[in-house]
């Protein structure tokens, strides 16, 4: 696969296809200010309407279609999800990560996406843990160990952004394997590799390492930034992960964020188990005590481990003294929407909505009018359960962030199911 939007300096080096020919001619004599326009391709966000006027592309229906596709793939059936995940993010900081086809450079773009991903990940998987690893100069370095604090990961990542040497996939996998192998079996072990290089420089047979990962049930996924590599594809196939190559920054973000929602729980990957957890209470205000995590005296706030009474600053965590997993009930509740997803809304065909008296005029959620200018019924969706109509924006918000159907929630669920009327 090649990148569509590969930069102009590459275009200068290689002969590309015919349609790039004139692009290339221009590239030679371009000033910096001209290049910014050429790189942003601002004309692509415009389209011509029937009367020949330029107007911005109607993104709304486009976004909505994209979202429907996502929805269909993710919540077709109620499946068990792997809610407790141990994920290592392996970041390639070899020479190739310094390439500037992504602006300002591959590693900066990757770091930015990883930062956003870490926050999103902990928002969606509050009981999971992340660790960071870098590949550089032929060796793998552990940047952070598995932990549940987004800030410490992001801080460590941002401090180490230099690229040099070669990347070694095998060394990275070996290190991940040694870390993940000691994690409890009820957790899902995963690796996400962001690979910039086009080669791997390994000390021995990488196939053995891949088999080792497979045996330890580590799900390896790779997102490439340059071109498809057979070894990455093989690795993902063997371990049940996914392999994609990003074409541009936007695509990269999409690919990275696909890993944020919990994966389906696969019985042979993680054994169901009961985990002992503590629900610490908030310590009284104004009490001075020494916290076990920073070894500092602190006033007020904090939580007390119910088993050993040690003081902890933040949840969720593992008690430093007795090793009990400590969470609060909202942390658990944050994951419940993965288990009870709301049904996708149905599109309402324009032919059905021909009788304007019958249809609601406003979106049930936000009261925005559902009529197009000229009193024609606009595009809308309908909840199959409560039969309320929603606008497209609300549809996306409800399924992606709220996870409640306002219509179903605001009518008492009768035992004689489904007779409620708006």
């Amino acid at each position: 696969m090649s990148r569509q939007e590969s930069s102009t300096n590459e275009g200068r080096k290689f002969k590309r296809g015919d349609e790039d020919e004139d692009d290339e001619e221009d590239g030679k004599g371009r000033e910096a200010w001209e290049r910014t326009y050429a790189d942003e391709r601002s004309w692509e966000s415009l389209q011509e309407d029937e009367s020949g006027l330029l107007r911005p592309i109607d993104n709304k229906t486009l976004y909505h279609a994209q979202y429907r596709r996502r929805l269909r793939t993710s919540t077709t059936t109620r499946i068990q999800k792997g809610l407790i995940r141990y994920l290592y993010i392996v970041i390639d900081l070899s020479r190739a990560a310094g390439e500037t086809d992504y602006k300002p450079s591959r590693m900066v773009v990757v770091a930015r996406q990883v930062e956003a991903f870490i926050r999103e990940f902990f928002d969606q998987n509050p009981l999971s843990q992340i660790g960071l690893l870098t590949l550089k100069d032929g060796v793998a370095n552990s940047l952070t160990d598995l932990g549940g604090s987004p800030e410490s990961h992001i801080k460590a990542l941002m401090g180490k952004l230099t690229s040099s040497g070669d990347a070694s996939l095998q060394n990275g996998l070996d290190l991940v394997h040694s870390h993940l192998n000691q994690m409890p079996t009820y957790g899902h072990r995963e690796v996400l590799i962001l690979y910039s290089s086009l080669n791997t420089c390994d000390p021995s047979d990488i196939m053995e390492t891949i088999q080792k990962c497979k045996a330890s049930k580590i799900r390896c996924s790779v997102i490439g930034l340059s071109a498809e590599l057979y070894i990455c594809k093989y690795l993902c196939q063997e371990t049940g992960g996914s392999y994609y190559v990003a074409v541009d920054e936007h695509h990269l973000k999409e690919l990275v964020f696909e890993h944020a929602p919990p994966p389906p729980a696969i019985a042979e990957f993680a054994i169901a188990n009961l985990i002992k957890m503590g629900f610490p209470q908030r310590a009284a205000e104004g009490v001075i005590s020494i916290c076990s995590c920073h070894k500092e005296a602190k006033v007020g706030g904090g939580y007390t481990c119910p088993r050993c009474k040690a003081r902890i600053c933040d949840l969720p965590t593992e008690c430093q003294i007795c090793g009990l997993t400590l969470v609060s009930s909202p942390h658990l509740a944050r994951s419940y929407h993965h288990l009870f997803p709301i049904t996708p809304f149905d599109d309402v065909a324009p032919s059905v909505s021909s009788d304007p008296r019958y249809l609601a005029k406003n979106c049930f959620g936000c009261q925005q009018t559902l009529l197009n200018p000229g009193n024609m019924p606009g595009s809308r969706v309908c909840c199959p359960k409560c039969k309320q109509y929603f606008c497209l924006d609300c549809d996306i918000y409800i399924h992606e962030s709220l996870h409640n159907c306002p219509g179903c929630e605001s009518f008492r669920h009768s035992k004689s199911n489904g007779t409620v009327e708006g």
Partner: protein
Amino acid sequence: MTPVSSKLYTDDVSLLVVLIDTNPFFWNSVKSNLPFSKFISHVLAFLNSILLVNQQNQVVVLATGHNSCDYVFDSSVAQSQNQRAEHLLQKLEEFVDKDESLCREESVDGQGFSLLSGSLSMALCYIQRVFRSGPLHPHPRILCLHGSPDGPGQYVAIMNSIFSAQRSMVPIDACVIGTQHSAFLQQASYITGGVYLKPQLLDGLFQYLSTVFATDLHSRAFLQLPKPAGVDFRASCFCHKNTIDMGYICSVCLSIFCKHQKKCSTCGSVFGQAQAQDSSTPPNPNPKRKTPMDA
């Protein structure tokens, strides 16, 4: 779309979404303290004062009923200024009638909670619409005037709303007018950074509302508002509904149990062996213990 984007908003313009509890079972039970009519007159005075403080302020009122929820007032919809109260009261009356008629149909068995999850979800949808309206928009917040007890079946839906509000930085304020504290609203205001208040004397409700909940979000930073008292973050187990501070969690569906079980009653997973013993023995000091904690 309303022409909100054409206005110039400063940092002290608020959009206040008020959720009024109209549950007849609740108002019937507290008649002696504060009748509904008196409560509404307090609220009307409060809403008027919000609109007076800044002429760009916007107020939306949602009624949280026993069987349904609906919008009853939106100050951005054009209407003559001196008939706001009449308009609101008329819509509210219609709503209460409709709510009552739904109630008769289904012969309710005295479940006294109202549909807070529904009105919260609708309020959040409305707020998202305001966010979409352009880069300059009023700063939204939600105020729940709630009295009915918490409906246990709404737990997941209310928590979902709370997290969505937290993500979009919308504080949920709560003024509890019932006799008991609401654990849902305590968590809501704690998680979203709102104010939780249970007034001592309901006769002075207007004063509580105007002193605590009338200030815009920007000015709140300079005020000494009621601090959240202890919020109970302990969970209750699914098997006996006991509140526990240590328990067992199913690794597949995160159900909470107070005792070790063989099989999860929620998702039906069969549990493996010995994990309980593993985690109760002190952990061996393996190298990954020393996590890099930034001081």
